[in-house]
């Protein structure tokens, strides 16, 4: 595993999994699989609290339950890209702005898959439906916006 922060406000994590892209992609986008690993340590993600609508514009919603307290952390995402088994990207609106996550799956040809997860914190005003038309558009707009400051 290797990972590096490319910029402040951005997080990149590169991981290699011992499974072909089709399997890794299915795991990342199917509630029956997600429930096994989505919640970080100390939390769980009940199967009946996961919604995946596998298409651009579809919902990607999970509820992480903190094991110790029963507190719930709902995360309501919307897919921007849904391109099996190559790419998913989704937005999450949160209290501190919005986050865009883009995961690419690359076939290493030996039964393994490299995933690159790029997470970017995006100011909420750029999260309009127009801006969500595509991730590329959004980053272009973000660049323009930042250049104009």
């Amino acid at each position, binding site marked *: *595993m290797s*990972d590096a*922060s490319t*910029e*402040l*406000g*951005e*997080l990149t*994590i590169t*991981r290699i*999994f*011992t*499974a072909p892209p089709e*399997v*890794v992609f299915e*795991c*990342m986008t199917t509630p029956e*699989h997600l429930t*096994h*690993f*989505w*919640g*970080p*340590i100390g939390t769980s993600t009940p199967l009946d609290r996961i919604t995946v609508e596998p298409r651009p514009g579809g919902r990607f919603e999970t509820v992480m339950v903190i094991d110790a307290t029963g507190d719930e952390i709902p995360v309501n995402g919307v897919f921007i890209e849904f391109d099996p088994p190559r790419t998913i990207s989704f937005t999450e609106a949160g*209290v*501190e*702005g919005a*986050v865009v996550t883009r995961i690419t799956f690359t076939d290493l040809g030996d039964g393994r898959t490299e*995933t690159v*997860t790029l*997470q970017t*914190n*995006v*100011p*909420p*005003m*750029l999260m309009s439906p127009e801006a969500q038309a595509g991730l590329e558009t959004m980053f272009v707009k973000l660049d323009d*916006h*930042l250049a104009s*400051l």
Partner: protein
Amino acid sequence: MANDPLSLTFAALADPTRRSVLVRLAAGGATVNELAEPFDISLQAVSRHLKVLETAGLISRGRDAQFRPCHLEQAPLKAATDWIATNRQIWTERFDQLDEHLEQISTDRQREHER
């Protein structure tokens, strides 16, 4: 633009000139003229960058009307790096568990195959 603290911080940090200014200020306070020196841009441009940094709370400026020396403020930077650290932790744990899950799938399929 969005004015929640973390968005302001990240927007301010998105510009390489402003990041260089912060790196310089980490070594100690400086005036606008001192900050402008290494850059091939006008004093006005530097002042605009400083304004963005000040609005984001990343720097504070002295009261001295003529020089208004700039100082680095640590708290917003810490919030920004905390965001990155927390998310890195979440994704690392998530992927560790996915590793285990994939291993389980592989084992299950092998057993299925052997039956």
